[in-house]
């Protein structure tokens, strides 16, 4: 695969966990290249290591062995400050269980990543623009009316759209979605997939993890994770 256009490259990723006295080798040398503007679905059986791989690609977790390059930069050479900035600016996570902060409103949840990257004074200067952008994102996701609500006042589909909005707030180059429809009924899940497709058509690079082949088919490319390795 031509790597000049690649945004994300993983080479020989290994990861194992200890379960009691036993060591479980989840990833056994995963090689994956993601091109800019691509929508990739990673499929595999439950426990195959899909989520683990996604977390490693998004620098939420570290591989035991192997390299992840984002725009040709080796993530393992990043210090903790650079990793935090990478997670804040370069990637956006969407989780199966939405993971919104109950204490914040929908609008606050969406602009939280922008707020997290600013000092108090910096935020006071930037607040207007951030709120405007968060409002626009909620408008695009059809949630303008819900801006002042709390997450627990929303349906599952609405919550997931808020989570997508939060992931998009800082205009990340890469969107990582972990079973984004896994907790939704098929109609609502379909709506979420349409949103992702729309984002991808607008140029957003997306890596999605799912165990459902039908959902995976909505992506531009599907890779299968089995026995700890990618099988194209």
């Amino acid at each position, binding site marked *: 695969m031509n790597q000049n256009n690649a945004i994300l490259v993983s080479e020989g990723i290994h990861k194992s966990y200890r379960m009691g006295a036993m060591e479980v080798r989840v990833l056994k040398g995963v090689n994956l290249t993601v091109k800019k503007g691509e929508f990739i679905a990673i499929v595999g059986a439950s426990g195959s290591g899909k989520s683990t791989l996604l977390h490693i690609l998004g620098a*939420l977790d570290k591989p035991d062995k192997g390299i992840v390059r984002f725009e040709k930069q080796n993530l393992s050479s990043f210090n903790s400050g650079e990793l935090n*900035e*990478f*997670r804040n600016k370069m990637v956006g996570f969407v*989780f199966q269980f939405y993971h919104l*902060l109950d204490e914040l409103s929908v609008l606050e949840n969406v602009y*939280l990543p922008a707020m997290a990257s600013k000092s108090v004074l910096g935020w006071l200067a930037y607040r207007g623009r951030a709120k405007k952008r968060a409002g626009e994102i909620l408008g695009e996701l059809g949630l303008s009316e819900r801006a002042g609500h709390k997450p627990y006042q929303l349906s599952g589909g609405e919550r997931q759209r808020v989570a997508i909005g939060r992931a998009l707030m800082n205009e990340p180059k890469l969107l990582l979605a972990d079973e984004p429809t896994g907790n939704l009924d098929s109609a609502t899940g379909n709506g979420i997939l349409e949103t992702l497709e729309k984002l991808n058509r607008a140029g957003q690079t997306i890596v999605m993890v799912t165990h459902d082949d039908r959902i995976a088919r909505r992506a531009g490319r599907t890779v299968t994770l089995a026995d700890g390795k990618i099988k194209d």
Partner: protein
Amino acid sequence: MYKIILAFRYLLKRRITYFAVLAVALSVFIVVVVMTVMTGLVNDFKQKNHDFVGDCVVGTESLVGFAYYEDFIQKLESEDFVEGISPVVKSFALKRRRGSGLDDVVEIMGIDPLMHCRATNFGETLYFHRNNVSEMFVPTYDPNLAGCVQGIDLLLYRSADNNYPHEAILDRIGYSISCFPLTARGALAQVGTDIVNTRTFYNSDHSHSGLAKVDGTMVYLPLEQAQWLCGMDGSVKRISAIHIKFKPDVKMETGREKISSLWIDFKQRKADESQAYLLDTVTVQNWKDYKRATIAPMEQEQTVMTVMFAFVGITTVFIIFVVFYMIISHKSKDIGILKSIGVSNFNIVQLFSGFAFLVGFIGSAIGLLAGWLFLLRINRIENWLFEHFRFQLWDRTIYAIGDIPSQVDLKVVIIIFLSAIAACLVGALLPSFQAALQEPVKTLQVGQL
């Protein structure tokens, strides 16, 4: 900014934090009230002792006393830092009410009325002669009689509601005061049937110093009379002490050092005198050292109380620790979310420390306000309890305490306020670090939800 917002929201939304705030408020309330009352009592006690003694005392514990005091007083009178000087005779005596067959052991203090009131606040303790101290030993009912001033508790019983039943005029009651006169060498000055000197005095006033021991045992007599009773009125007169008051701008220790240096010089000049050996027992002490034996136990009680409140502080730290441990256990998902959007470990610690700061700040503010309001009304509350239930914090018939001190010391308040916030921060420190070190992938796992 998100740290401030989240800290406030956690505070308002988590009911368990109300318990943490309440625990801090209660601890602060107790500490403020008890420390204010205790500090007030100690300060009041010290002030009364200071008022009674003056600033400095040149004196001896020996019942024989010391000689040549007039020369030293003359020297002191020429010093510009000295405001008042009072020669004093102190001893023990037997007091018998005329017509009664019982003797009471009392302490006697021979003073010159004007000199003593200039060197101490003794004049303020009198009831009938407060504005006419020079006449304190003149009974109003018969100016020709020899008068004495007695400690108020020797004459009157304080009622439970903290009042003395003062009468408009003192009763004409005579007391015979007997002392064992001693020679300069400490031997009995008289033998045979005249072993004691006795003289009759009539009540001319009573003194209320607020010091239980003094008010319950002391009889004040004219200096010359006391000298005669104690055998200190020979060709070389003797006294027990010189009480000195410094000018207002003179620091206590500086004044004492100057007096000490003057005394050393004086003693050297008197070395060849016949009773120079009596000067060896004389010490120069500031009022605090002079009354150390009385003040020290109270200061010790204050220290013990402070240590006990340090334990209250440790309990608060532990409560905060438990509350934060519980909160953070429930907030592990939030920590994972925050880390997934790039929040650093340091910022996680800051977030929960800010939360702890808010708990400490609000809890302390509530505790201080409640404590202040309680102290403002503490005497009214005690009066009400006494009127309705006959309950008193201190039985006024036993303890020489007037009103319960309620003056809040700003310095103490600031220390308590900052200590409470510090206790909350300490209590939250470990759970905050624990939170910061959580791995986001573990906290965001389905199994953790």
